[in-house]
């Protein structure tokens, strides 16, 4: 269901704001020296500080501040001259101190925005730094039926960047575009792994609706627990319609938190014991304020890499790619860099694009690999492209070679040799095959001579088959034509 349908059917338009939490890929945690690493054995990356033991104190990770400010610079935000950390006080078993060190009224950045491919700017309200919580597991399945809770504090204290938009997003598709753009920028900056399935990118939404053309904001509901881009789109679609249905029925939208249930395809209200959250924010007395100097900002600016939109535009200009091609190739920096190496080495941006967007993508999926994890180096792919262009192998054989390259990282020449895939241009050999095929297919020869040109292609195919695909097809065709007169 598209939003246009919602608008026209019900007379409502959606107003969406997104809060995205991004785990920063620093070496160590936000306030202690424990390793910041996903997937480690439970409770092996913990220390007295991130366990909230008595007497411990936090010390700010410089790189986390740098990563957040660089994100802010990339998104056109205003970097605060003065900033500080505050305590957000509430109790939960995944919170070692039962307060989270976060930022309240003086975040590191304000303003800025993310430009969508459509050209629309989604404005940002703020970006601030905080520490992540531990992870809880409920023994016995769903939370409500559990007998007890197990806690792993490896993630407690990991640096978290919270990016809050203004309610500028108008529909679920824009939300997805926003997330895609944001993910691209963050991957370019190298500040996060941005993997929703690993939790290094998490998204909550604030959703409200209002009659089309009005400006007053309706009551918003917060939607949480969306674990993929697809979930976000589905959840937003559901929630918008749920609210529209409620208003149509004369009910009111309740301001509440709702969880998305992927299995049942709906949002449900989470009723918590404490209806109102009084976080009692106050400046953390264990930390001192931050002052970001202009010189530091200049230094960070000088270190900024080429960002997605700029790279995309350059690809259009320099490599003559289509909008679509440039878009996909610049989605993440690994792909973009890989493409450029291939294009340069193979002397053909078009070929590089075709391969990467076509067979390479397909084969990577088949092997459950990515450009980052495959052993096929870009120079090797470029070599393969050159071998095809030079006629050393056929296009079909090249796909087979690529398959092996992706899995093993072997050089194309080696694979071609091992499997005997090199095309043959030996006219003598091909001539004998042509003679054999012509003798064996008198009917087709007769058809061809009678004017059925399709018969030629059949005969070509037969020669190719006889040569197990190794004969150069244009030589086959030339010799056949000669033979058939």
């Amino acid at each position, binding site marked *: 269901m598209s939003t246009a349908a919602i608008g026209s059917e019900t007379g409502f338009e959606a107003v969406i704001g997104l809060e995205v939490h991004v785990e920063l890929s620093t070496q160590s945690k936000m306030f202690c020296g424990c390793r*910041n690493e996903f997937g480690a054995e439970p409770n092996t990356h913990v220390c007295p500080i991130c366990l909230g033991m008595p007497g411990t104190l936090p010390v700010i990770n410089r*790189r986390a501040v740098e990563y957040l400010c660089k994100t802010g610079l990339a998104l056109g935000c205003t970097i605060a001259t003065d900033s500080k950390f505050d305590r957000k006080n509430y109790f939960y078993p995944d919170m070692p101190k039962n307060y989270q060190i976060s930022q309240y009224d003086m975040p590191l950045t304000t303003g800025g925005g993310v430009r969508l491919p459509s050209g629309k700017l989604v404005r940002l309200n703020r970006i601030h730094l905080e520490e992540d919580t531990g992870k809880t597991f409920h023994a016995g399945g769903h*939370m409500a039926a*559990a007998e007890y809770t197990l806690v*792993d504090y490896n993630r407690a204290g990991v640096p978290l960047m919270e990016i809050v938009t203004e309610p500028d997003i108008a529909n679920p598709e824009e939300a997805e575009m926003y997330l895609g753009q944001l993910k691209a920028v963050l991957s370019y900056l190298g500040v996060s792994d941005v993997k929703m399935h690993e939790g290094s990118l998490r998204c909550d939404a604030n959703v409200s609706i209002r009659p089309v053309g009005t400006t007053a904001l309706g009551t918003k509901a917060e939607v949480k627990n969306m674990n993929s881009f697809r979930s976000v789109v589905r959840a937003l679609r559901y929630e918008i319609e749920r609210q529209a249905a409620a208003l149509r029925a004369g009910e009111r939208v309740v301001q509440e938190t709702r969880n998305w249930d992927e299995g049942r395809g709906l949002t449900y209200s989470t*009723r918590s014991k404490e209806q109102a959250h009084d976080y009692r924010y106050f400046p953390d007395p264990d930390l001192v304020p931050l002052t970001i100097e202009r010189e530091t900002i200049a230094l960070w600016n000088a270190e900024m890499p080429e960002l997605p939109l700029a790279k995309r535009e350059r690809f259009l200009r320099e490599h003559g790619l289509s909008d679509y091609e440039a878009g996909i190739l610049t989605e993440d920096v690994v792909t973009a860099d890989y493409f450029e190496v291939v294009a340069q080495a193979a002397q053909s941006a078009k070929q590089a694009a075709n391969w990467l967007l076509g067979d390479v993508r397909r084969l990577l999926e088949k092997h459950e690999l990515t450009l980052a994890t495959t052993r096929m180096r870009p120079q090797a792919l470029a070599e393969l492209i050159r071998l095809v262009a030079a006629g050393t192998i056929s296009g079909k054989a090249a796909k087979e070679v690529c398959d092996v390259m992706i899995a093993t990282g072997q050089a194309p020449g080696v694979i071609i040799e091992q499997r005997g895939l090199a095309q043959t241009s030996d006219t003598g050999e091909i001539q004998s095959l042509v003679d054999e095929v012509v003798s064996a297919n008198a009917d087709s020869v007769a058809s061809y001579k009678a004017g059925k040109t399709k018969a030629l292609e059949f005969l070509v195919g037969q020669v190719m088959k006889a040569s197990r695909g190794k004969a150069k097809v244009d030589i086959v065709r030339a010799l056949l034509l000669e033979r058939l007169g």
Partner: protein
Amino acid sequence: MADVPIDIDHVSRLARLALTKEEATRFSAQFSRLFEFIAELQSLDVNEISATAQVIPLKNVMREDVAQACLPRDVALENAPAREGPYFKTPRILDGES
């Protein structure tokens, strides 16, 4: 005796402190004199004054992003009132975040 404005039930819930009725009544009475002193603070004009959250003039105290040795797991769990395998164990969480 000053009026003690604290809603002790509300506040003790925020602080996850289960006070008995007797405690709540007794504390309320005990705060009374303190609130006389606190009331005196309201008479001062502090509009132009900035708050001293920190008495020391420090800024930008940070550390380098270097991973260091953590606690061995058994030491980390040594003080845990309850554990199961590599995890800390607590009673179940009934509701959402609080």
